[in-house]
């Protein structure tokens, strides 16, 4: 249902209090539109009542050579944004990790690369294929998400994901971040900060490492990320699987 339909259904009185609600949100949008930054043009908030469309495909480009900390700042920003990594009862192997720093040492050359790995937001995501209820799904704008309302916790998506991007919540959680619902018995992963993207902001990790990460619309040839990828290309992890990932790397 579009925003217009909702409008028609509601009475005039409700509309007036709705405007009041909207006023609060408009404040946030305003900040974004006046904030300086090269990505301003590409990352624009869609109206809150509009559905996302497949005209957009959000993507990320990570230049590992410019990540001097191997992605530690990104990981910290992600933790702060989404509140994971603070599970009290779970063992280390059971803790959630939405994004992690992977150290790769080439066996022959001993060349070391460090890179952050998270959900790669595949175009044809194995996790979406295997999910029995459709809780694991890809939004029209390319962001792969878990609908925790209908996730039954079977963990088949975790078996299917080639990037080990998903975590299962092994215990009861409280005090979640308001924009990041997470709970026992469901699977979760990087959501490309869907809450921020919908509000016209960049993902938290990109904001934490602006020198090394680009976020934008892969379908828009004029976006910075598309231009950069067109000129220099970008590597996918496990490109052999043909998943056409939304996250691309330089320097791996």
């Amino acid at each position, binding site marked *: *249902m579009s*925003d217009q339909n*909702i409008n028609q259904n*509601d*009475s005039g*009185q*409700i509309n*007036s*209090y*709705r405007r*009041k*609600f*909207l006023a*609060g*949100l408009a404040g946030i949008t305003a900040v974004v539109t006046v904030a300086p930054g090269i990505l301003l043009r590409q990352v624009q908030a*869609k109206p*809150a*009542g*509009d*559905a*996302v469309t497949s005209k957009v495909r959000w993507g990320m480009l990570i230049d590992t050579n410019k990540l001097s900390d191997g992605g530690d700042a990104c990981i910290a920003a992600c933790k*702060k944004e989404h509140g994971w990594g*603070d599970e*009290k009862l779970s063992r280390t192997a059971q803790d959630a990790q939405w994004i992690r720093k992977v150290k790769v040492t080439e066996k022959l050359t001993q060349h070391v690369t460090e890179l952050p790995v998270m959900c790669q937001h595949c175009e044809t995501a194995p996790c979406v294929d295997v999910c029995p209820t459709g809780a694991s*799904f890809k*939004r*029209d*704008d390319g962001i792969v*998400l878990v*609908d*925790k*309302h209908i996730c039954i916790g079977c963990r088949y998506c975790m078996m299917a994901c080639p990037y080990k991007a998903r975590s299962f919540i092994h215990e*009861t*959680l*409280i*005090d*979640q*971040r*308001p*924009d990041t*619902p*997470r*709970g*026992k*018995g*469901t699977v979760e992963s990087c959501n490309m900060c*869907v809450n921020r993207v*919908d509000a016209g902001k960049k993902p938290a990790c990109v904001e934490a490492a602006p020198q090394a990460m680009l976020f934008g619309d892969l379908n828009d040839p004029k976006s910075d990320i598309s231009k950069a990828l067109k000129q220099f290309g970008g590597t996918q992890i496990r490109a052999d699987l043909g998943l056409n990932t939304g996250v691309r790397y330089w320097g791996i």
Partner: protein
Amino acid sequence: MFRKFLSVASLGVILISLLGISGCQSKPLEIAKATKGFDTQEQLDAHVKNIRKDHMDRLMHKRDQTMHKGIRTPENSLKACINCHVPEPTESKVVRYTDPEHFCATCHNYVSVQLDCFQCHTDHPDKPAVATATQTPTTAHDMKVAIKHSSTEAAAQ
């Protein structure tokens, strides 16, 4: 004879319990006051009328639109409900949905309808400090104290 007596007796028990139920005085529940107000009484009345009847529809059926299509109309936002109807946490007290004074819990407890939202969604507004300054994660010990505190307070009431 005995069987007859038994059936009459059981009928009596059912009647008396029915009477008991109908005789119950149902006082209007005292629910927590919202932190923000409307400009006019009219707006408030419309809000109350609509939400009392349709809140489950708004939360339940609009959630799919938000989740799958990214439609985030503020009047269907659970976060907006919580921010207005549940007090912000203080040093000494965090109102949780397990507490009877929590806005949602008051009625849901009364009608024995399970609240599933807060398995994943947070049940209270974010601390004002957290939104701007760096977040200091509460330790497990702090949380236990907080829960204990709220439950003893609830018991005291």
